[in-house]
């Protein structure tokens, strides 16, 4: 009966493993199923409106809200058709009201035939600084519930300068799996999963799609003042701020490098001490043998000299991501700026 029991355990272990692998495969399929995100212009207008509204009230325009929509599996497209704003989670009671608000909105939107399935959240960013622990946590929470969830980032500053900026992100599959198990990564984990700051987040292309009636409406509202914001010459303040952000990001990375150095030195010192103690013991024992005494037991010194815990690598990963994003942004801004300067020059001469 012991054999039978062992066989049962083996079979269930095997079943469980195959179940896990099918789940993993299924999960991977869901993760990769979304190739494109289609947003209606209505949602974009709502997001810009919400961000503008918050900007008028206070100088810190961090807005976030929930996206609603549906998944079109045949085309591999996630359609975002509606959204509603959430309050900033500054006070504790705001979090409670946010939750009640979300539930209430879900129930109510069902009554008017609006898609009520939450497909992600949107957040506004200031010069690409959205990429922090909070953001990662939020993306993870949404992904856990629905493998196709996305996070939409809207940059109000860039839009004011003339270029509408809406991007969609989600965690890459290895990052998601790793974060599910450990809340902080170590260097070995990163190496095992070949995770760098470049493939931490995955960007999904965004398209704007409207229904025919909405297109008619847009034609009707053509009387709005034309915006020439796009043709303004590049100002130095935007560039200055971006450079400041870049510098602070580099400072963070520098600090982290120092921490790593310190850590490595500590580990080395510990190992040296361990070796020294073992050596001392050996010499003592040799001496005692000569004297004819009993040798002392070779204690396990490793328990006394526990190596310091490995450093968490999540924060430096996120700050490297931020720095890369800053560099990209500065590059784009400067590229457009040079083009505009040439244009302005041809006008003058």
């Amino acid at each position: 009966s012991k054999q039978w029991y062992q066989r049962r355990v083996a079979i269930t272990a095997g079943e469980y493993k195959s179940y896990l692998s099918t789940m993993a495969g299924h999960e991977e399929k869901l993760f990769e199923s979304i190739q494109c995100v289609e947003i209606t212009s209505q949602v974009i207008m709502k997001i810009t409106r919400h961000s503008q509204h918050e900007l008028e009230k206070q100088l810190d325009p961090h807005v976030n809200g929930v996206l609603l929509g549906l998944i079109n599996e045949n085309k591999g497209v996630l359609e975002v058709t509606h959204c509603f704003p959430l309050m900033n989670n500054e006070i504790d009671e705001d979090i409670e009201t946010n939750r009640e608000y979300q539930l209430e909105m879900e129930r109510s939107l069902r009554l008017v035939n609006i898609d009520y399935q939450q497909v992600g959240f949107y957040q506004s960013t200031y010069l690409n600084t959205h990429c922090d622990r909070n953001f990662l946590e939020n993306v993870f929470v949404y992904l856990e519930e629905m493998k196709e969830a996305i996070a939409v980032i809207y940059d109000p500053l860039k839009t004011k300068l003339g270029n509408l900026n809406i991007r969609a992100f989600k965690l890459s599959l290895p990052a998601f799996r790793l974060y599910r198990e450990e809340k902080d990564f170590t260097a070995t984990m990163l190496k095992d999963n070949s995770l760098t700051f470049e493939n931490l987040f995955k960007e999904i292309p965004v398209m704007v799609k409207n229904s025919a009636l909405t297109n008619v409406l847009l034609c009707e509202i053509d009387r709005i003042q034309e915006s020439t914001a796009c043709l303004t010459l590049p100002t130095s303040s935007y560039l200055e701020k971006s450079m400041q952000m870049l510098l602070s990001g580099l400072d963070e990375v520098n600090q982290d490098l120092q921490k790593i150095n310190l850590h490595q030195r500590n580990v080395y010192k510990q190992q040296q001490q361990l070796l020294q103690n073992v050596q001392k013991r050996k010499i003592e024992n040799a001496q005692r043998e000569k004297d004819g005494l009993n040798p002392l037991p070779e204690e396990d010194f490793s328990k006394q000299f526990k190596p310091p815990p490995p450093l968490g690598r999540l924060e430096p990963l996120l700050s490297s991501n931020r720095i890369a994003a800053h560099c990209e942004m500065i590059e784009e801004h400067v590229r457009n700026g040079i083009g505009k300067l040439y244009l302005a020059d041809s006008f003058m001469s």
Partner: protein
Amino acid sequence: KQWYQRRVVISAGNVVDNFERREDSNKRVIGTLLGRYDKGTVIISESFAVPHQETDEEVSMDMEYANRIGELQKKVNTNLYTVGWYSSGIVINEHSSLIHAFYKCQCPTPVHLTVDTQFKEQKMKINTHISLPIGVKGGSEGCIFTPVQYTVQGSEAEQVSLKFFNGLKLNKKSPNFNDREQLLSNCTDMLSQLNLVLDHVKKVGTVHIRSSYFFLSA
């Protein structure tokens, strides 16, 4: 009193979206408009749909829903109040005045916005009205919906987004969010406008037509 109103594009978009999703039994949809008052103008910023049923004889709407969602929205957008209501379709009848009476309890002069989704005049006409009492006191009384002027305005960011969507409506293909492409499309727009002005100036020069005032938006 003349009321000028500013409206952001969102509300009209909401109406259209609501109309597309309506139950087939309803011929039109209604909803609440939120906004604020500012020295004689009403600024309409947001809106949400309210479920309602309407037949030829009677009309009913979910008032509790309207109140509940109104409260929720006020919690999140703290300085918005109910300023009126919208409906799709250009018809204003007794049912409209009933619904208008409900909204009169919520704000002093509710604004009624209609978006013609059925193209009675070959285009999607957007109108705003307020209701004024007419009639003889003691005799037959009623109310009349008078049209009011409105302008459409938005912040810079919203204007940029609208310009972005402009390219969309004719091509049906989504333009790239790439900065350089947006710059390119803006430049070509500017170029076409300059060409227009140049043509007109040439015509004035050669054909000696009376140069009329030519307002070019830009």
